[in-house]
């Protein structure tokens, strides 16, 4: 059965190995269904690589990627039950906001009446009502990421990957966006993997943390445990708590 947005899907990397030039990665980790997991760790540790493996932009040398009960290891990115928001370049600069969101429904932009209604609803929900005809360059940085989130909504995939999407936004704007992500996750029950460098981001919205170090998932657990006195040593060193 194909998992839908309504039935939360577990994301599992089963002994996945991958190498990129000198760097070697070995992931064996599970993300709880219907939860937000912050993926943290030093630069170059493999956070983005992990997300790329789940999204299908990278193909493992060995091991399996499972979403729900489904083995997606060999599936192309578009066939996976996954949406991803990148740090930048989430939008096509020559297409309007509405078209950029519409692409989530039809990659050839052949939209039915139902699709158009869904697009309008998603724009309204993300606070972009009335901006459907604008081009990306007429939007602020925060608004562009809202467009990407609106597209996530119309795609209705059970897994959402966020690769530092708010890293270039100011503190107040970032807070708004985090709240929006948390609210959308709550409504849709998506499984969210959220790469961030900011411990306060993780604290604010995530349920779990996966700490990546040197190409491996070094520690996993609920947020509370991580930030408590008994948190993993490597993580405490990373955030400068010890």
């Amino acid at each position, binding site marked *: 059965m194909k998992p839908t947005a309504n039935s939360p899907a577990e994301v599992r990397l089963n002994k996945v190995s991958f190498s990129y030039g000198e760097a070697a990665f070995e992931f064996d980790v599970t993300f709880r269904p219907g939860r937000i997991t912050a993926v943290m760790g030093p630069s170059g540790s493999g956070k983005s690589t992990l997300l790329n493996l789940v*999204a*299908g*932009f*990278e193909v493992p040398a060995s091991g399996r990627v499972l979403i729900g009960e489904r083995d997606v290891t*060999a599936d192309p*990115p*578009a066939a996976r039950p996954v949406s991803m928001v990148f740090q*930048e*370049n989430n939008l096509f600069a020559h297409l309007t906001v509405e078209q950029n969101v519409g692409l989530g429904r039809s*990659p050839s932009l052949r939209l039915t009446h139902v699709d158009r209604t869904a697009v309008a609803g998603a724009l309204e929900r993300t606070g972009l009502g009335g901006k459907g005809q604008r081009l990306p360059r007429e939007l602020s940085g925060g608004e562009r990421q809202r467009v990407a989130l609106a597209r996530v909504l119309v795609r209705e995939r059970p897994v959402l990957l966020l690769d530092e999407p708010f890293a270039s936004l100011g503190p107040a704007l970032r807070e708004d966006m985090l709240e929006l992500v948390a609210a959308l996750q709550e409504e849709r029950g998506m499984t969210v993997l959220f790469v961030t460098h900011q411990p306060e981001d993780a604290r604010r919205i995530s349920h779990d943390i996966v700490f990546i170090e040197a190409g491996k998932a070094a520690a996993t657990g609920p947020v509370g445990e991580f930030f408590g006195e008994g948190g993993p040593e490597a993580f405490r060193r990373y955030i400068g708590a010890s």
Partner: protein
Amino acid sequence: MPGAGNSGHSDFRTAAGIVALAAISLLIGGAFAGLIVEGLRDLSGAVAAFDPYMLRVARFTLWQALLSTLLSVVPALFVARALVRHPHFPGRGLILQLFAVPLALPALVAALGVLALYGRAGYFAGLLSMLGGDTWPGIYGLSGILVAHVFFNLPLSVRLFVEALQTVPSDQWRLASQLGMGARAGFRLIEWPVLRQALPGVAGLVFMLCVTSFTIVLTLGGGPRATTLEVAIYQALRFDFDPARAVALTVLQVTLTFVIVFVLTRLGANTAAEASLSVAPRRFVSAGRGETALNGALIALALLFVAGPMAATVVAGLQAELGRLVLEPTVQSAALTSLILALLSALLAAALSMALVMARQALALRPAGARRPLLQYATDTGAGFVLVVPPIVVGAGWFILLRHVADVFALAPVLVVTVNAVMAMPFALRALRPAYDAASARHERLCAQLGIAGWTRLRLIDWPSLRRPLATAAAFAMALSLGDLGVIALFGSDAVQTLPYLLLARMGSYRTADAAGLALILGLACLALMFLSTRLGKASDRKVDSVFG
């Protein structure tokens, strides 16, 4: 950067590249097949064609190229240096722009300009007769070829050397003037090292252009004493109808070009010309009064030499009965034929280049395990090798292959379009590749994620972001094709004639005024297209900078 993963679009693009490569291989392979078949059919004839005359032609080909290179490159070193040392020289920017014009001018138009100035009935004939004390015989033969080649290649070399000199950091110039380096020390310690690095590349490029020069030798060579291999191939097919000789000449020409290119790549030469140039004045060069005067004179001389034939083209063209010429049905139909063929050729060049660029990027993005290095090489550097095969050779091969099975003259349009398209391709690739690769960097993951692939991606994503670079490439290819006299000289007939072909015919029947008028029209059309091409190119550069989604 992460690849597109296992996306279907990668296969679509690779397939497009394979189709384009197959088309190019068919065009060039067919020509070689024609030559081989003919050579085997009449082996003794082909072997017998290697006679002293042919060796003389080969020797002249190399000799004129060597002299042209020396006369273009050596003065260019000093003119470029003068231009860089005097950033405030009046009209410096204009001069550099004027030096870009010959690049855009069809060789035929330039040849007419040279004749209008230095020919037997040229504007300088009276003066030259007076100086020589005898009737000026006109500038045919080696001297004509050299003047025309220098007209083209001196400004090209100047621009390339100026570009090289401008890579010297301004701090070095500042330091030099602080240390009180004179002109000689500055040249030896700062300018010469940079120029020496650029020298093999520039000289190699010019030499190659002169070895494969066809139109100028055809129009200015004037006889068997001053003939190059390319012109000899044309004469063997068009006038003597001696296919065996044509085969022998072609083999020699191809061998020669391959050897030269091999030697040049060893020397580190870049065999494709770069026309763009950013003009950044350097302020900290101090030159003495004597040097300033000398440099000024040098620049003025070069300027006169380059501007002369251009001015002569304009003046002679305006003296022609342009009104009558434009209304003449033959001219109108030739112009129409030219425009249609050039447009088709431009579209084909753009499509082929786009396919190659897409395939190259798709192959580069593949994961290490699924690489296809040979195909990647073919879509990358391999495509540049078409420059090594002169259009006349391709034309000659097909001419020989098809003459048994079809009316070769009826096939003129097909060959003109395809050969010109393939010859423009290396330039079109240079306009397209950076733009496509930049767009790909922005769009690759997004397209893979959303499942945008194949024609949909071409229509929705790639076309809008590549419209301008595609137009740049197409305008450039169209200008090249419009002014070309290579293939049409072989295949042209009264039934199918282009403007350059008609121009050559009018020259041949001594209707000089008509030829001058046509040259002006043709030259302006090509300049307009080149201007359009660079404008579109610059605009798209700016656009890439300012847009991110």
